């Protein structure tokens, strides 16, 4: 590849005790790409996310962000370097307001010292005001600002997903990892979410890696797709290729499916 990848995962293997969750997984994301990561339950997709974001240290393999080797970094350092994510089972700070959730996302750019925060020096007050202002603008641009004072845990499910994405964006990432953003949504909500993701990617100039089970979402917005099964990559390519790939169909539906499909 002539151009340097934005996110590069090389020969990643993750073992827990005797169980190999991911084996020799490789993936290159060019800047601005939107790539889908699919596969049956337990295929190791979330494990890939956990390794990229530093929750787990991989058994072997490397993760590079814009050429910088971030393998095994602590999650907060990975975040600072420019990778943000959401979670399969939404992990907002439930009792904090939506605004506060977003402010926590902005935290890592706070320059003022602890001392100036306690003394509320003019410099700190100004920075805090800017930070709140930026957070409000972010919420506004995503159409979430009317929730700013609501405890995040009290929002409807679909809105919590959006707030979680907003919080991730607050860290100003280069790469956004979305773990099943459409889970539990009805078709209309999924459609809205697709638009939301597209808009976010455009507006924030992001590279996106997406785990999703909802094929309408995956096929609708992903430019490329990688398929994991039992920790191994069984296919990758553009959506049309994946849809036609026999191994993928078998992984999802079992070996006998082709007969049914043929009928």
């Amino acid at each position, binding site marked *: 590849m002539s151009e340097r990848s934005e996110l590069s995962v090389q020969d990643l293997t993750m073992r827990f005790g005797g169980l190999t969750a991911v084996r020799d997984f490789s993936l290159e994301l060019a800047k601005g790409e939107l790539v889908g990561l699919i596969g049956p339950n337990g295929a190791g997709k*979330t494990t890939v996310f956990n390794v990229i974001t530093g*929750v787990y240290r991989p058994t072997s393999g490397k993760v590079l962000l814009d050429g910088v080797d971030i393998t095994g970094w602590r999650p907060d350092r990975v975040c600072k370097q420019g990778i943000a994510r959401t979670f399969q089972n939404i992990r907002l700070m439930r009792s904090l307001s939506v605004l506060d959730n977003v402010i926590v996302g902005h935290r890592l750019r706070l320059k003022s010292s602890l001392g100036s925060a306690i003394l509320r020096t003019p410099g700190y007050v100004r920075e805090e005001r800017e930070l709140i202002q930026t957070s409000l603008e972010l919420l506004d641009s995503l159409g979430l600002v009317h929730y700013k004072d609501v405890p995040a845990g009290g929002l409807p499910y679909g809105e919590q997903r959006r707030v979680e994405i907003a919080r991730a964006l607050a860290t100003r990432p280069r790469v956004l990892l979305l773990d099943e953003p459409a889970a539990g949504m009805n078709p209309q909500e999924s459609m809205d979410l697709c638009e939301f993701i597209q808009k976010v990617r455009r507006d924030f100039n992001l590279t996106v890696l997406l785990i999703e089970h909802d094929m309408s979402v995956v096929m609708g917005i992903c430019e490329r797709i990688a398929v994991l099964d039992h920790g191994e990559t069984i296919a990758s390519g553009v959506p049309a290729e994946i849809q036609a790939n026999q191994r993928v169909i078998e992984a999802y539906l079992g070996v006998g499916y082709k007969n049914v499909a043929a009928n």
Partner: protein
Amino acid sequence: MTWAVFAQNLVNGLSLGSLYALVAIGYTMVYGILRLINFAHSNIFMLGAYMLFYADLMFRLPWWLSFVIAVIVTAIMGVIVERAAYRPLRQAPRISALISAIGVAYFIENLGLVVFGGRPKPFPVPAFFSKSYQLGSVYMANIAWVVPLLSGILLFGLMVLVYRTKVGLAMRAISHDMETSSLMSVDVDRIVAITFGVGSALAAAGGIMWGLKYPQINPLMGTVPGLKAFTAAVLGGIGSIPGAMIGGMLLGMLEIMLVASMPALSGFRDAFAFLVLIVILLARPSGLMGREYREKV
């Protein structure tokens, strides 16, 4: 240390360790089921010793009968504590139940001061226990082998109860998942009550044997052994019954051996248990036998 002295220390360690194990079981069983640190457990331990004292003093019963009665009465008290102070808080934040436990501990301890008086009482020790024999160069009293033996029998009985009976199965089920168990028609209230009864009975037996070893009892006698036993439960992996036994034995043995091998450090004896605990927790954050905690992300 000569071999004879070593052997004596080994027996002492075994006997202290088995007492820690007996008390640790109560902490770990309650924690396993309710996720509650039952701070009142050390007071139950104290009550056991006093119940025997009064049974012996007032009714002049044979010692073994006093023992049985004291253990049963204390077990009932444990059940009452659960019913009155913990059951109403089962749906409350965990910390509220913990404060309730501290409140119960204060209550029993001070009620002990009011009812039993603060002055230490001489504990009745039948002649049999204090009779001692000379083995080579060391003396050993009957109590030295009675305590580990009796504890061993009780612990064996407990293992049978937990791993071989329906009640034990229900206990393990609840400790795994209380809500699901209650949906599967396990009578949670009854099993929790039994757990407190069994734990309290073991603590009472521990308190009584403690009284045999150190025949002066007072209402605060449970504080230090209770804390040590709790430490043993944690370093064994709180919630795990084998862990509590191993932790208790390990702690008792190490404590005796430390003092025996380095008498200069005997002043640090009480700190030693915690040092062991912290070292073990830093190496294994959930204790020796505790379920490895890995949060699903």
